[in-house]
């Protein structure tokens, strides 16, 4: 019971908060609607858990609560994958930055016959 109330309270809080942001023109109308629908569904699921069972049995999973956990795991995997990708991309960009700085500030020995004038 406590869990249900907490979940509903959080859903209401999330919707109110997003509505304020929408009114302050910080998020788009589209995003507000998506967000509101999502949290409304969460609230419905919290009030009447058996409704999720209908969806669950439709896709072939026994219980609605299980289905939510499965979806959660898949989403988390995807998010971690995206984060790793992003982190790799950042690392590559840092390397490129460090590389360009190194090339620009080259330090050449005074007696080198090859330095200077060869730039293309």
């Amino acid at each position, binding site marked *: 019971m406590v869990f249900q109330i907490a979940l509903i309270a959080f859903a209401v809080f999330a919707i109110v908060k997003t509505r304020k942001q929408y009114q302050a023109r910080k998020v788009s109308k589209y995003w507000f609607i998506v967000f509101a629908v999502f949290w409304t569904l969460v609230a419905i699921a919290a009030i009447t858990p058996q409704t999720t069972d209908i969806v669950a049995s439709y896709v072939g999973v026994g219980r609605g609560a299980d289905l939510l956990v499965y979806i959660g795991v898949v989403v988390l995997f995807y998010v971690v994958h995206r984060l790793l990708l992003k982190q790799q991309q950042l690392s590559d960009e840092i390397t490129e930055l460090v590389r360009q700085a*190194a090339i620009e500030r080259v330090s050449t020995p005074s007696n080198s016959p*090859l330095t200077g004038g060869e730039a293309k």
Partner: protein
Amino acid sequence: MRIVAVIPAYNEETRIGAAVRDALAYTQAVVVVDDRSRDRSGQIAKEAGAIVLTHHLNRGQGAALQTATDYALRYLNPDIIVHFDADGQMQGSDIEGLVTPIMRGEADIVLGSRFLGKQAENMPRFRRLVLRASVVFTLALSGLRISDPHNGFRALSREAARDIRITLDRMAHASEILDLIIVASLRFREHPVTIRYTAETLEKSPSTWRAFGIVKDLLKKKFVR
């Protein structure tokens, strides 16, 4: 023929001076990339006659090699680029043998090998074992049959150096290069070189266990990127 040696350096102040002079005896220029060493590697390399580039953050051996190659291709107009080590394990006198097939137009890239005739001196047994395993691994992953996939001693024609762009910043670049040889259909050849292991270089060089890190980086590149 203009031969330029590129040397990645990380905390090698005790050996890099000798390595630069050794390489300079067989090349027209030496480019050292100081990969954010905490010692005087860069200064000593410069005093020994190298052109020195400095990474302000440590980016790894692969990244340093690519920085040196970028610089050389842009400003030094090399016919051949030689990958050389800062720690004195490689012998400058082997450079001649490595570049000859490229000069003759018989190969685009020549890879040094510790297992073709010339003996590696004082190689620990466990390292030999892991290196043997890497042969099988390379064959499986890249389809390249090669006796010593993780030898850092290489010679590349200017065109090969342009084709091979190292993106794996850390140790897996050696395998990446082999991959790119196949992708760019470069003509390659192996050439025996002497690698001299000493107590000092073994202590400095990362553990042979890093092989696992290399495998991880490679798989990441194949499947994630």
